Each structure stands twice: as structure tokens, then as C-alpha cells.
């Protein structure tokens, strides 16, 4: 993230003469005080953030059905069986990974570009701008359960208003939005865009407002039209935020669960069950801890690789 320079700079000591007295006081506060402040956080951080990383690495090397099997060490066997592509667990897991990948590939481009356009719109001057910003953001605060239940109804093939409206417009009115492919993909991606577009738009908007107005004026004086100004002033200034949004959107899309659980009920025949959905089911419903742990590691590894790839891509583009 940062270059080598900061680590070479001397430790911070602002004006030792003026602040010397106060400094000594600060230090003469009991040496345990910092640890008292940090203690409560560190205890929970150790148990629920650091330990889980080790627990997962450990549990992924066991054959372990919670409540039945004691958890014998099997080395790489869980990973090997996952990678073999044979057996129900391996097949279903990779099917879930494919669902997650398809959803991510379909949704991320839309979730990066549509909010950007929306942020450009909200960055114009017009009356009631903050009200509309709040309105477009509103679906996000509802949470996936409400959004899922709502769209499961709106998209119902027989009684849902989406098909009724399409029918009224003379379009096909019997598409099974929630139970057939590829319509289910349109539903899942479309609802996700509707639900989270405001979130990314608000992040972009804050960055847009940081672009110095003088640059636009200068570009205008040079005769650059709106489109040129977008490419020569706005987008170069958005480089870091774009990178941030792409990474968090990939992570969010790869974690998709609620939409496929509630809108499509993982239909048709489990074809929209995501990797995380299958991991949760394997570990917390079938209690197959060993396999679910290995699956978690595989998904996490893919996510880390994807994030690194995106960061490299942005670095490469930044240099060109």
C-alpha cells in the first residue's frame, strides 16, 4: 500500500522542548493504562478473529462430523477430495462456486458502473439533491431479508406485479423469474443492483466532491466538452476509489447468500445455490466441519487471489 519512505522517517517527536513537561506526565500515567483500554477488545479479538483463522486451518485437516466423529487428523485428504471433483460434496461445492462466480461476473460490472453514473447525476446541482440521494440509498438499509421477501413476491410468475406490468405493456408476461434459468440470474443480479446501487453511489459521490473545481474550469477553458472532462479530470481522480469499490463489490458479490435463499429459494433444483450457501449447509446443518472448513479455505483463497489481481490490474492501468 505505502512506499518504503515512511518506515525510514524518524520516530515522531513534536517539539520536545515545549511539550516536554506534558509528555512526561502522559508517560507517567500508569504503564498498565493502555492495556486496560485495549484489554476488552483484545480478548474478543483474540477469541473471535485471530483464533478462528487458526481453528479453520486446523479443522480443515480433520475428518470431523460434529457430535459423531471425534475429529481425526487426515492431512490434505479433505482438500484432495474437494479437488477430485468426485462425490456429492465436491460436485455440489464446485457447482456452488460456479454460481458464485457467475453472479460475481454478472453483477460486479453493473455495480461498479451504474452507481458511478448515479453519483455523476447526484453531483449535478438541482433542488432537493440530498433528498433524492437519501431516497436512492434507502433500499440498502432494509437488509437482504426484507428485500428478498419483497422481490420474491414482485417477481412471482403468476401473481407478481412485474409480470402483470409486462403484460400490460404487451410484453411476455409469464416469465418464471424465480424458478427458471436464465431468468433467475436476471432477477438475482437486478435485485442486487436495486438494493445496493445507492451504497456504491454514496462512496463515489464523496470522492467526486473532492475533485478540485478549478480543474474543471481549466479543462473548460481549454475547450474540453463534458465527455472529455469526465475522462481527463474525473476518472483519473477516482482511481483509488474505483479500486476500492471494485474490491469491496467483488467481496460482497462473492458472499451473496440471502438473495438466492429468499428470492429464488436456490431454484431451479439448487442451480442458484451459492458457494457460501453450500458451505453453511455442509458445516452448520450437516455438521461436516472438516469438509466445510476446507471449502471455506478454498473460497477464501479465491477471494484473496481475486483482490490481489484487481489491485495489480489497477496498478498496471495507473502506470499506463
Amino acid at each position, binding site marked *: 500500500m505505502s512506499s518504503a519512505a515512511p518506515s525510514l522517517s524518524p520516530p515522531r517527536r513534536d517539539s520536545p522542548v515545549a511539550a516536554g513537561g506534558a509528555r512526561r506526565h502522559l508517560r507517567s500515567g500508569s504503564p498498565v493504562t493502555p492495556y486496560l*483500554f485495549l484489554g476488552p477488545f483484545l480478548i474478543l479479538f483474540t477469541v473471535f*478473529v485471530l483464533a478462528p*483463522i487458526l481453528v479453520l486451518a486446523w479443522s480443515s485437516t480433520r475428518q470431523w462430523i460434529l457430535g459423531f466423529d471425534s475429529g481425526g487428523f487426515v492431512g490434505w485428504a479433505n482438500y484432495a477430495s474437494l479437488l477430485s471433483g468426485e462425490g456429492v460434496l465436491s460436485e455440489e461445492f464446485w457447482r456452488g462456486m460456479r454460481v458464485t462466480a457467475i453472479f460475481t461476473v454478472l453483477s460486479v460490472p453493473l455495480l461498479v458502473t451504474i452507481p458511478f453514473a448515479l453519483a455523476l447525476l447526484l453531483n449535478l446541482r438541482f433542488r432537493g439533491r440530498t433528498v433524492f440521494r437519501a431516497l436512492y440509498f*434507502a433500499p440498502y438499509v432494509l437488509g437482504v431479508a426484507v428485500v428478498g421477501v419483497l422481490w420474491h413476491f414482485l417477481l412471482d410468475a403468476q401473481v407478481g406485479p412485474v409480470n402483470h406490468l409486462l403484460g400490460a405493456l404487451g410484453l411476455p408476461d409469464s416469465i418464471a423469474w424465480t424458478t427458471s434459468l436464465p431468468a433467475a440470474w436476471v432477477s438475482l443480479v437486478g435485485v442486487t443492483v*436495486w438494493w445496493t446501487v445507492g451504497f456504491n453511489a454514496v462512496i463515489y459521490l464523496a470522492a467526486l466532491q473532492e475533485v478540485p473545481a478549478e480543474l474543471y474550469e481549466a479543462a473548460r477553458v481549454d475547450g474540453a466538452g463534458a465527455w472529455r472532462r469526465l475522462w481527463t479530470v474525473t476518472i483519473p481522480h477516482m482511481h483509488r476509489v474505483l479500486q476500492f469499490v471494485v474490491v469491496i463489490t467483488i467481496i460482497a458479490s462473492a458472499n451473496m447468500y*440471502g438473495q438466492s435463499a429468499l428470492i429464488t429459494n436456490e431454484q431451479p433444483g439448487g442451480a442458484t445455490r451459492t458457494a457460501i450457501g453450500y458451505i453453511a449447509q455442509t458445516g452448520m446443518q450437516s455438521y461436516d466441519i472438516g469438509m466445510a472448513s476446507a471449502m471455506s479455505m478454498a473460497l477464501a483463497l479465491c477471494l484473496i487471489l481475486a483482490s490481489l489481481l484487481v489491485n495489480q490490474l489497477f496498478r498496471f492501468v495507473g502506470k499506463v
Partner: protein
Amino acid sequence: MSAVLPTRRRPLQPRRIALWVLIIALTAVFAMPLLYMLSTAFKTPAESVSPDFRIWPQEPTLGAFRQILGDDSVPVLRWVGNSLLVAVAHSALTVTLAVLAAYALARMEFRGRRLMMGAILATMFVPAVVMLIPHFLIVNSLGWLNSYAALIIPGAAGAFGVFFLRQFFAGIPRELEEAAIVDGCTQWSTFARIMLPLARPAIATLVVLSFLSSWNDYLWPVYVLFSGDMQTLPSGLRLLQAENTTRYDVMMAGAVIASVPVLALYVAAQRWIIEGVSTSGIKG
């Protein structure tokens, strides 16, 4: 400099019209589904599935709400209480832990500070799926399955809150603290009386964001809560959907009940929510 530039001419009229057409169309896209949810909750079962696209119900009725409140297998009011309790406790715990830790990391000198900061920051890059199965194992071995503790505690020590508040504390001028100490404040009273009030906006943002993330959490409560009366609203809605597969009026009534508290919070704390999300982008 920019003050001396001539004020910009108002854009041409047709552009203005196009802008407003776009804004109104977008408003419809975002608001119509929510309005339709609200209106369906007050429709009769027959009207809720009729092909007429009606925003105002023909014969408004509280039938769907009565049906939900009279059905003991879907104790929605209890779920509202569970969700509130869990979200309030979770955000209170998250913010308390984060404020104390962030202050120490930003303002105190002690052994191991850089190491701790490094460890906390590093975990921000660990995908959330890594925590899922281990949290289940830990919660199970603590005997917390099907309890409020399972929802309140495991996610409370995240790196984000500490990172977010540390940035804020680091930005407060040191002179303020030094003056307080010269005036005889102890470390604790400097923190409590000087720094905490200054950090109020950042704390408010974090309170609201952690409340929302707890309130809306779906996957975790589905798997760690077993009994009907322990559900939160999101996991409860799933039961409601399973029980009323054809009663869309009832489902929408449940969705409305689950939305009202967050929408109220949103209207009240809109500024902090939106600012919190925006700053997360700038700092990230």
C-alpha cells in the same frame, strides 16, 4: 481564486427537463417496490394477488397484520424485540470496545503497539467466510447456540471500528490533551471529558453502522437460532415465508413490520449513515 470567476450560466432548458425526467424515473424505480410492499400489506388476500396494479388498496384492511399477530408459530412482535435487543447490545459492545482500543492505539505509547495495530489491520483483509465455521464451533463449545450471545458477541471485535475511530482520534490536535493534563486531568478523565465528546460524530456513525449490520444480518441467525421464539426479524421472515407461501399480503405485512424500525432510524440518522459510508470509501 474561484470567487472571482463569473457565476456559471444556468444550463439550457431542455437539459433541465431531461434531468428531471431522469430523476423522477429513478425515484419511481426505487420507491415503487417499497410502496407496493406497503399497499399489499393492507390488501385482502384476493386483491394482493389480483392482476390490477393498484397502489391504493380497494378495500384497505388490517387482516394480514391480524393474521400475523394471531399466529403463535410466527411471533413477529417477539422477533422485533429480539432484533432490537440484539442490535442495540451488539452496537453498544462494538463501539465501546472500539473506542477504548482506538484511543489507546492512537494516543498512548506502550510496548507492542505497532504489532497490535499491524495485527488488527491485517485481519481487515481476511475474507468473512473464514470466520463462519470457526465461529460456529466456538459458539457451540461455549454453549451459546440458540442464544442472544451468539448474535451479539462474535462480530463485536472487528478491525473496521478500531481503524475508523483511530483515524479520527489521530486527527485531534495533541495540544488539547496536553492542556488537559497540565490542568491536572488524569488519563481517564482526559479521555472521558475531552476526547470522547470530540469524537461524538465518529462514534454516532459507528453506532448506526453496527446497528444496521446486526439488524440486517441474515445467514448467521438462520443457522445458530433453532427455536421459533428466538428468531430475529430477518431469520423470522424466512419462517413466515415458508408458512405462508401463497399469502403475499401476510408476507408483505411481515416485511413492513421489519422495515419500519430501520426506516425510522434511517430518517433520523440519515446523515450519519450516509457520511459513514462515504468516509469508509475515502479512507479505504
